[in-house]
């Protein structure tokens, strides 16, 4: 069960990495994070209705100087593939993809999603890292953002349900 305490640690780690703009869609496990972003005065939060528009929203905000994260479940990552390719990769826009890794190790939901997630990211040329220990969040988010800006592309952090 996702907790507000864990969400708070993740949000602090994102803020330490300089994230000040988040676009999101919820998942049951992401509810405390969505609520945390809504309350946070240092982060502009955009609640989306489909993940692909989030790539555009983060691209517009990035052009305006914001450091952006797009949070979604991995089903949403698949929804976002065209914009990730023809906007984020084609135009070279850095952003952090915070992806709930459904169907992964020990998770009973959406087994097919769990299988295709990492191969799809690899095909899109998007580096990805798995967050399976909350203590790693600060270094992983910061490192992923440095890589995103250095390689001028999105970088994904796949969050296991256990860390939420």
């Amino acid at each position, binding site marked *: 069960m996702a907790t507000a305490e864990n969400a708070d640690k993740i949000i602090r780690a994102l803020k*330490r*990495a*300089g994230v000040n*703009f988040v*676009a999101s869609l919820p998942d049951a496990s992401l509810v405390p994070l969505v609520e945390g972003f809504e309350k946070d005065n240092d982060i*502009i939060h*955009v*609640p*989306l*209705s*489909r993940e*692909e*528009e*989030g*790539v*555009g*929203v*983060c*691209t*517009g*905000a*990035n*052009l*305006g*100087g*914001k*450091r*952006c994260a797009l949070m979604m479940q991995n089903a949403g990552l698949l929804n976002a593939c*065209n*914009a990730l390719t*023809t*906007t984020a990769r*084609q*135009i*070279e*826009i850095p952003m952090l993809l915070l992806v709930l890794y459904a169907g992964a190790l020990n998770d009973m939901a959406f087994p097919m999603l769990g299988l295709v997630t990492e191969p799809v990211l690899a095909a899109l040329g998007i580096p990805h890292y798995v967050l399976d220990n909350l203590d790693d969040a600060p270094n992983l988010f*910061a490192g992923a*953002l*440095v890589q995103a*800006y*250095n390689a001028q592309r999105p970088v994904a952090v796949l969050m296991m349900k256990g860390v939420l």
Partner: protein
Amino acid sequence: MKRKEALFATRELFGDTPCFVTVGLVWLDWGTARPSDGNFHLKTLGSGSSLGLGLALAMPHRKIAVLDGDGAVIMNVNGLVTVGRVQPRNLIHIVFDNKIYESSGCIPTASAYNLDIAELGKAAGIKSVRKVSDLAAFSAAVKHAFDTDGPHFIVATVEPSGEDANTSYSRLNEVEGKFVFSRYLEKIEGRKLREDPIDVRLSIR
């Protein structure tokens, strides 16, 4: 009304406003009406409302415009839904509705049949929605959008241009386009916006 004459009639109202422009002939038309580094060529069909929203939230003190088409806007109706929810006061979204996919073979869009795109904007709750089909009403709608708080959603019925859309893809490099637009934003804002990788690295303590 032709799209090109609508753009020429209103270009001065835009001033130095950054504009996201959808794929196809509107890019050429707008580049002729208002040649500027502040014109950004979209790549993902339908992404205009989304990029416009993102930049509008990042620069709430400045009007941000989106020049869109009917085929594009109905590919990302979600973008309207989110604009209706977030209500960015500084966003001006203009849709030229020629009722065909003009840049990809002139096949009719849903607006040639039963769809009313302006009603989509109203249903999404976008504060200011206008549907226009002549030059005077279009000019008045654009002036209203620059003079008042929005978000504004203007749907302009236009005739197909009858021109060849393939020419609109010449002289474009997306990454160069990003840097040109980025430097333009920095110039009109008078501050640094683009973060180099080293800026990001050094900012993390």
